[in-house]
């Protein structure tokens, strides 16, 4: 009982026939093999499965794959350019913004549009933007520092 869908993921067009109940998270991970998107709760709280859907951060466990028909999806695999990390990724490495790394891809995908929309966010704004993600390892502090670092880095690159 498949439904045909056609969507663009990380710049590549995919056509598949999927069950209407298939979650976008499962579609990305198991149909397309994009396992960088992680699944932590499947009820929309932990944020680990966050991807960009038409540029907006969404929880892919709360979206059916059929709802992504005709749309553009971007996942963590698309952030780095070759061997060059995205500035947010490299800020996370510099500031020790990850430990086990399981929640990290989702956080990165939330921060991409957040830092595009918010120039020089203060700590409280960062913490609020981050509050839709659960992390059990870091206590968030070094994630906040990583985002502050990335914000400076990104602001610097747009000024040039």
């Amino acid at each position, binding site marked *: 009982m498949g439904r045909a869908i056609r969507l663009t993921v990380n710049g590549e067009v995919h056509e598949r026939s999927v*069950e209407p*109940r*298939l979650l976008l998270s*499962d579609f990305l*991970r*198991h149909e397309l*093999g*994009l*396992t*960088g*998107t*992680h*699944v*932590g*709760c*499947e*009820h929309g*709280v*932990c944020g*680990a499965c966050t991807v960009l859907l038409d540029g907006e951060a969404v929880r892919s466990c709360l979206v059916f794959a059929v709802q992504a028909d005709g749309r553009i999806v971007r*996942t*963590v*695999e698309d*952030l*780095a350019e070759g061997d060059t*990390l995205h500035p947010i*990724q490299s800020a*996370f*490495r*510099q500031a*020790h913004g*990850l*430990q*086990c*790394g*399981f*929640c*990290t*891809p989702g956080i*990165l995908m939330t921060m991409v549009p957040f830092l595009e929309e918010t120039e020089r966010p203060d700590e409280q704004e*960062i*913490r*609020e933007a*981050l*509050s*839709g*993600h*659960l*992390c*059990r*390892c*870091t*206590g*968030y*502090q*070094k*994630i*906040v520092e990583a985002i502050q670092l990335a914000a400076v880095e990104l602001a610097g690159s747009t000024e040039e």
Partner: protein
Amino acid sequence: MTTRFFGERVQRNEDEVLLTGRALFVDDQQLPGMLHIAFVRSEYAHGRLLGVDPARALEMPGVTAVYTAADLGGYWQPGPLLVPPPPIENLTFHARTQVPLAREKVRYVGEPIAVVVAESRYLAEDAAEEVGVDIEPLDAVVGLEEALAEGAPTIHEDLDSNLAAHAVQTKGDYEVACRAADVVLARDFVYDRGVSAAMENRGIVAHWDQRAGQLTVWDTTQAPIPIRNGLAGMLGLSESQVRVVAPFIGGGFGPKIMMFYPEEVLLPWIAMRLGRPVKWIEDRFENFFSTTQERGQLHEAEIALASDGRILGVKDVFIHDTGAYNPYGLTIPINTQCTLLGPYDVPSYRSEFRVAFTNRPIVTPIRGAGRQHGVFVMERLLDLGARELGLDVTEIRRRNFLSPDAFPHNHEILFQDFAPLVYDSGDYEPALDKLIEMLGYQPSVDKPLVPDSDTQDGVRSSGSGDVLRGVGIVSYIEGTGIGPYEGARVRVEASGKVCLVTGVGTQGQGHHTSFAQLVADQVGVDVGDVRVITGDTREFHWGTGTFASRGAVVAGNACHAAAVAVREKILRSASQLLEVAQEDLVLADGRVTVKGAPEIAVGLGELAVHCNPLRGAVRSGTEPGLEATEYFGPERAATASGVHAMVVAVDPETAMVEIERYLVVHDCGTVINPTIVEGQIHGGVAHGIGNAFYEQLVCDPDGQLRNASFMDYLIPTATDVPPIETAHVETPSPLNPLGTKGVGEAGAIPVGALFNQAVEDALKGWAPGLELREIPLSPNRLFELIEEVRGEKSSETDS
């Protein structure tokens, strides 16, 4: 020893694959022909299992098989008792360990009853709904006192009661101390249960390659080597036929070292039976029932004090909740018993505990592993003592600290590793002084404790009404890095890069970096040139696992030892090759050069090839290559310690608490990588804040969990955890060459005690006489407690 990387804030080797989504977690493993598994679990906490009917499920499309306990035949065996109890005199202990699938009885909600195998997870879950399960419910045993009450329903019917264990450990004579005391205070304390909530749920992929006779299991375990050894035994295979891989693990925190979970026993058996790879990934709802939990204890404790605040003795009687089974023996209650003594000189101690079986999920260690409870009881007793004697909370601690010359200090009771509880080292006052300085704290009794020009009598006006502020300061110690041993193998490869292998798996602690730092220092390469492999039994199969804050201590010293041995080999072979005495050689930057003649040099890769020739002989008594394997086993635990402080703002009308500042001064011996250590502390503190404030498994009298989701069971977010101001002091452990002590659990241990103390301090003017002696302390519960005290007060005024 050249020291270039030890102690440096080196960026992590493992980050790049994690940040780009290329790291392998168990659920990322996809194998051709793989089948998927869902479990049918008990919906009752306690009941007789009268029958299981898989017929309808088996008729559903895509369903390959359904198994119940009856299908397992002789493979059905209760799990092993992982940690037998230490030899405590007059100990009572009954081991009743978990079973692969329930038969005859179910003992907790979530206990597996049947397993469904299907072409997809979706189909497996559909079919699991259709498996008929007939259970005759029995009265559930939920509360701890209720579990041990006369006439309580027995969970294991071959036992007379729900008593799993009873133990008494003593030091000196508490009764004598009590008679000599100026003040004796007795109180009850409650610590409730939570989940570890690793962001990655558990999961297993099992693959049986019949032609190769090889079983491979990818498992979210903290202990791949014992899992391999156990599976080989259970399945009748040679250990060399079983490979267990713990790849990147999305957080462990203790429950992932439980052995064996029913799923770990069943998946390999199913893979072999069906000849196809199988996968099971726990979902979050399942995790609230099927992954082990911790923290339920009830204490009745007493402290005997001299008028100057010196501790003469402590007595503690407690009940520990082990859930429906007790595979982890007495590790948690013994940690509680031992950690209660803290950094203090306690001349007499009587600690007695009973362990109760209950109809709740199995209890095994979670980050802190019972240490929290001991610290909670002791620190709260000291706070009460300070109040009674008119002493500042820091002063009563200072007067009881063990002095720096008191080490090694023997507490005369047994620790969880069966060794006497002997502290190896410590120096507690400098850490407290440093914390006081960072906090800007002025020890005082009557005045508000928060130095702040905005406050008057501790009350600050804010937009939403008056906010009361309070401060807490607590101390603790932690026995870390217990044996038995770990090992490591270091090899210089032909590329000149270095490969380090250890059996200890990683769940986010940065092993790929801190272990690499240790090796890089010895072998003279960059940290990034050390490739670290952990948690794969094909690569290394001696060791136990990642637990008890022991990675840096036990595996760290093994890595160091192996690297030292390789360094010796490098210098010996280079000396022969270059015909230069070893003492005239310099090993750095991936090559060996001659002092004063840097043009005479050999690269490590070239040297490695030279030591592994294709022609010519390797003389007997020598080994080819630049490789060494070494092991390290500490005599006993290394004693880490710390002091934490918290400043809170409490809205007395709503009982909402905001943590305004959080400070940590920590001593984990020598620090390999301060950034990683800070990360460990931050995470531990956040976990502790969750335990103290939000996290509680709300269970009804029927043993049904009422908040099994992240919508209802709250773990702290970025807006709840304050920035944590951290400083290190270093008292190296004399028990290992590196001087390291563990840090993985530390942050989580004292937070409950601290939170109660700080909130109580904030409310001392608003609700005089309020005593907080329970964890968690949600705003609702705090509100009730405030109302009780104020209600009593107003009724006194009325009458």
